[in-house]
């Protein structure tokens, strides 16, 4: 018998009872570092930073820009490097507190809901938006630890606007109540 074999063979030789729980690897990872068995991080966001931007055609009184990249956390972090005048003489850099709130907001989104894309106005307002087959939604982070939210259900045409929403201590149920329309990931398989 060849000495080279897989670990599975070791397991098969151990006489494990058939009623033992299957060994799916569901160990929770601490931190964003890759698991010990993960050796080749070959795929990273294809567009990091704010260079890949385009104008958004949404109804708004401010000239918003958005990024085509979906690596939302990296892009929000890159916003912190901006200084006043980043988009013309009157443009303003975002407040780091707003960026932190946006990062916390994104990290709290339940995994059933897709991640949003970041946006930043020349006046320094940090925002997030979704533009899917099912809904359009945007979130703006204001200076007073509050946010405003707009969501339009594309299937029904129903719109909701939430103002003065506290950013802290958002429960997953709250995300579903507000952004549940976005959670339809069956569209992925279409």
């Amino acid at each position, binding site marked *: 018998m060849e*000495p*080279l*074999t*897989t*670990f599975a*063979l*070791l397991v098969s030789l151990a006489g494990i*009872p*058939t*009623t*033992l*729980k*299957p060994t*799916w*690897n*569901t160990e*929770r*990872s*601490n*931190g*964003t570092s*890759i*698991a010990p*068995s*993960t*050796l*080749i*991080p*070959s*795929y*990273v*966001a294809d567009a990091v930073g704010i260079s890949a931007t385009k104008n958004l055609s949404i109804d708004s009184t401010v000239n918003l820009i958005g990024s085509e990249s*979906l*690596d*939302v*956390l990296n892009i929000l972090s890159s916003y912190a490097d901006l200084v006043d005048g980043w988009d013309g003489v009157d443009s303003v850099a975002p407040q780091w507190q707003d960026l932190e709130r946006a990062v*916390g907001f*994104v*990290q*709290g*989104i*339940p*995994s*059933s809901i*897709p*991640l949003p894309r970041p946006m930043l106005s020349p006046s320094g307002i940090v925002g997030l938006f979704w533009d*899917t087959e099912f809904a359009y939604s945007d979130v703006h982070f204001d200076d007073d630890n509050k946010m405003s939210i707009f969501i339009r259900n594309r299937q029904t045409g129903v719109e909701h606007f939430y103002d003065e929403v506290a950013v802290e201590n958002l*429960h*997953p*149920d709250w*995300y*579903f109540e507000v952004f*549940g329309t976005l*959670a*339809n*990931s*069956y*569209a*992925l*398989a279409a």
Partner: protein
Amino acid sequence: MNLDNLYPSSGNHAVQSMAFAIEWQGELSEKTMHAVHALAPILKPHYPTAVLQKLVMVNVGANPGQTSVVSNTDAIGGVQFQRPGKFGQVGGMMVVSRSNVLVQVNDYTRWKPVLESAMGFFGVVLKPILEEKSISAVALQYVDIFTWKDSIANLDYSKIFRLGNPYLSPNALALKSLWHSHHGFIVESTVPVLNTRLDNINVDIIENQGDRAVQILTSHRATMAEPLRKASDNYLQTIESVENELHAVNKKMLQALLTDEVCRKIDLIDK
């Protein structure tokens, strides 16, 4: 014993993490693993990071000391799709290995949206997988945690676990010390399709950062009499039906294990 001092891990429910799994016979080819990895752009709105895992081979010698790990740098062991969560943790992930696909949820909220999202992810990755393999088993796993925030002297397990429940040894309920009780059994089932179901209910009393905690791992794996193939009609709907049945089985098991008062704390009482 005041059950107000027993805290489910997520406030209104005790699910710390849960996972959906699908298994097939044998192992996927390298070509299919690459095809799965190529799906990363489609999954990116939910899982922005896709990581290739390396296949690790173990060299087993005949004598002690002759065992060593041999790495094959060209072979893919799995593809892990991740999304960020709170406090630097992974919020959720999907792992496609050579023999199964697992969707892990670390921020469980409600059954329906979590199931629907998992089915969406399965719908994406099963397309290339079914080109090569047929699905043999569908599975579901929960980890529930309750933390006791009072003196151990005031902890009475008979107020947490139902007296006479079929899954624990009666000896355990009278203990004050740490204990575990792991139980697995097979059930022949016809719901929703003919299958042989493996149920596991593993209860561990553990110390968690100075507090006593009750950890309940429940897993259910339905091995189907007729594998689901690419040509199977509505294979996704069948998988979803099986997952719904496994969820119902899980609920009944926990209702039989836990007292009514604890069930009420986690909204596990039938209405």
